[in-house]
């Protein structure tokens, strides 16, 4: 029995890329079956006017319709007539994907450095406010029109990155120089971020023309243009932004794999003592990797302002927290973050689609999303755990002269 499990694990660990994709698809399919049963049965306990009558019970929800909306609704119903690629639902999906790539990368970079950054949310909130305020003030001294677009957007993104980075550097410095656990400090700094931004807002940056807690709007020409495809003005998505996110993703992957800094970061993440031996200044590495992580979160905030709302609002969505799940699902591999963020984008947008097209309560839709993430993440999780387990067990005696079992648990090895 144990030997069989070990063989299975071994098979899973050495699966090729194609096999892993096939496994993920199978997991997705399995989650749909389980979820469908759940939806169907739940329908039996709901009350509705029309439903499927079976043996005296009325089943209100149609699982096929629910999943149809979840997946195809997220793309704007491509199988129905009159479909255009630039539709509202697809725009929502891709908008979420774009923002989650930034926050997912933020969490992933910290993870690879051996740090658990739960503070991406706070870094995003701070970066977003910095972006909005900087752009609003800079707009006063920068000419409008095309020049304004070209100047203000980079300034805005830079402001988000700088302030997000600085806010991320705080827990980094606290860990490096005061030995404060980054999990605790980043969680607490999320509250600090909310407090600081709302104080700053009421102190100076509140939009005088509005009773809602929000900043003045940035000029329309400072919003990220809907290029090169025309997702209309209300859709709040720009292909250009997505392209930037994807490029940044590739850039981070390159940074980790090819540069001295990336090498030192990964070494610190898996074996801090070996990093110190190899001449890495551990304190500086903690601060710089947290700064990079915070900057990525801040860029996420910048795009949230520049692409979605055109201003900073007090109720910032939980993009930073979702970034943790995105990163874990991607095995903390920067290149995996894209696919992982897209899945989260679909679930987000598809949930809205279910809400408008069916009577299924949002709580149940949340359960379906959760099931999908759980099922898709599990094979990767078992790969991670399995690699560790198999290293510890039968391989161990091979190190005839003593071997540690220190294993980074990387999934992209």
């Amino acid at each position, binding site marked *: 029995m144990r030997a069989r499990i070990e063989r299975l694990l071994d098979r899973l660990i050495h699966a090729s890329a194609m096999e892993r994709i096939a496994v993920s698809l199978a997991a997705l399919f399995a989650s749909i079956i389980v979820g469908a049963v759940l939806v169907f049965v739940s329908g039996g306990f709901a009350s509705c006017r029309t439903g499927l009558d079976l043996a005296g019970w009325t089943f209100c929800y149609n699982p096929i319709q629910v999943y149809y909306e979840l997946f195809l609704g997220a793309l704007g119903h491509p199988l129905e007539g009159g479909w255009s690629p630039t539709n509202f639902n697809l725009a929502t999906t891709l908008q979420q994907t774009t923002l989650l790539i930034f926050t997912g990368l933020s969490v992933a970079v910290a993870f690879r450095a051996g740090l658990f950054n739960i503070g991406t949310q706070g870094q995003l909130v701070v970066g977003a406010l910095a972006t909005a305020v900087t752009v609003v003030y800079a707009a006063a001294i920068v000419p409008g029109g095309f020049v304004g677009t070209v100047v203000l957007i980079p300034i805005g993104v830079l402001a988000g990155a700088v302030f997000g980075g600085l806010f991320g550097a705080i827990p980094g410095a606290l860990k490096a120089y005061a030995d404060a656990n980054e999990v605790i400090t980043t969680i607490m700094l999320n509250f600090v971020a909310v407090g600081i931004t709302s104080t700053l807002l009421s102190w100076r940056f509140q939009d005088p023309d509005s009773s809602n807690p929000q900043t003045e709007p940035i000029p329309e020409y400072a919003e990220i243009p809907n290029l090169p495809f025309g997702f209309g003005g209300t859709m709040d998505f720009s292909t250009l932004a997505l392209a930037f996110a994807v490029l940044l993703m590739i850039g981070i992957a390159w940074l980790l794999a090819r540069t001295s800094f990336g090498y*030192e970061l990964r070494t610190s993440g898996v074996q801090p003592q070996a990093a110190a031996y190899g001449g890495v200044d551990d304190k500086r590495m903690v601060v710089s990797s947290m700064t990079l992580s915070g900057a990525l979160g801040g860029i996420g905030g910048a795009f949230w302002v520049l692409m979605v709302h055109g201003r900073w609002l007090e109720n910032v969505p939980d993009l930073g927290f979702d970034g943790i799940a995105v990163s874990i699902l991607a095995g903390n591999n920067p290149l995996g973050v894209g696919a992982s963020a897209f899945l989260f984008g679909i679930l987000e947008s598809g949930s809205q689609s279910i809400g408008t097209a069916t009577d299924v309560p949002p709580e149940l839709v949340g359960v379906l999303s959760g099931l999908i993430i759980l099922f898709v993440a599990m094979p990767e999780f078992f790969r991670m755990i399995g690699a560790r387990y198999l290293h510890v067990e039968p391989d*161990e005696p091979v190190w*005839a002269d003593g071997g540690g079992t220190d294993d980074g648990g990387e999934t992209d090895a």
Partner: protein
Amino acid sequence: MTDSGTGTIADGGRGVEHGDGTARTAGGDGGGDLAVHLDNITKRFPGVVANDRVDLRVERGTVHALLGENGAGKTTLMNVLYGLYQPEGGRVVVDGQERAFDSPRDAIDAGVGMIHQHFMLVDTMTVAENIALGNEPRKWFGLAVDRERIDREIRDLCDRYGFDVDPGATVADLSVGAQQRVEILKALYRGADVLILDEPTAVLTPQEVEGLYSVLEELTEQGKTIIFITHKLGEATHAADEITVLRDGESVGTVDPTATTQEELAEYMVGREVLLEADVEPRENGDVVLSTDDIVVEDEREVEVVSGIDLEVHSGEILGIAGVDGNGQGQLIEAITGLRTPDEGTITFDGEEVTDWSRRERIDAGMAYIPEDRHEQGLVMSFDLVENGVLGSQRSAEFANGGRIDWASVRDHTEDIIETYDVRPPDADADAVSLSGGNQQKFIVGREFERDPDLVVATHPTRGVDIGSTEFIHDRLLELREEGVAVLLVSSKLDEVQSLSDRLAVIYEGEFVDVTDPDEITEEELGLLMAGEHPSERHEPTDTVATGDRGDAE
């Protein structure tokens, strides 16, 4: 097969007496009673034949040593016997019955137990809990663990084999030697008649090794059979009744330790003649490369562990530091290599004061360092050898250009190290964790020696390395010395520091108690110095400044 029931068994070199072996064949049915017979075992891994038609016959009630270099196939063969690997060819016969073990569980059921070098114990649990784990006797219809029975059975075992282990003690509080006895007890508790010990002495102090030998003796007297894996000649000749030598996956033969010499055994292992002692030519000293002035280091608990050490290492000189582990040599080395800041004193390297330099700056200035702990420091276990090949050089101009690592040239460099230092398997894409300890060490040594250093700080450079490679590493160290590199050598192997060093410093409780010419001191005197006692007053060692003048203390 040799009849182990007669006479004494002497260590080939030193004539140490082993207890008499009268009860060795306690099974009573004479010399032909084989507890284990591995017949023509062949085990292949992709690209290598780890065991090529190996034959092993182990008599009941004897200690059988399996001797060979790193990668000779010793552990693979034992993993076949323990059910971890399934052989491609050959038969496994235990107690006269042919067996096919699918897993260690099957092997345990057949009375074969294995004690790994790395103990599989849960630190926070008690000895009794660890021993019974997975085999707990139950009471109340299987609802509760019968703790009294466990304790009773363990006490019985301890009495029977003369072990001094408290079943109620927490494992974390035990010494390494005691933990090893717990592992042995665990195997006995599961009914093992044949015990496989994988490099059992690697983690033990010399006293604990002696303790282990007496445990082995007791076990064989009670009819148990021991197979023990080692690459150390002295151990094999001392403790074993018979020795089977493996080389390159093939069995070279089985010998009687009383009828052979260490030199002969070494030749069997390596396949050629081996010089067990390095040949050191005295040479003139060059300039001072490294010097320390009154170094004081406190450890994490603010206890002073290095108390004012002065030393000088000249170009073209090997300064050896001998001492029992834990006398401050580790902290001294860390202060020199830049992993720790000394609390007082200065360090000068190549004429510049480097006390405040970072580790990075010291690497760049030409300090190579073979660390004591290769698993935590020397290698990143989950990285492949290419990535490990650049550890420490990741920012040097040779491999990194404008912050970008040139992986192609790193790969070339890594392949050179692998070839020159005979790292096996010769696969640059293998993860460091998959290599055996000796090969990991060879790789680190290669990486550090090929850094083109001015100073090599080598702590236990041959720990866990087989004799063929040890000889090679020693030769390379002497070559570096010829080239004018300064070498600071710390080793717990007395013969190593003594034969390689030009000058030998003895450290005790954070101070040098003597600096001497290694040729003028006997091993006994050295042992006494390491224990903090002065065997004679001939060096008048009131002050312990290590200067360039051989053997003189200021």
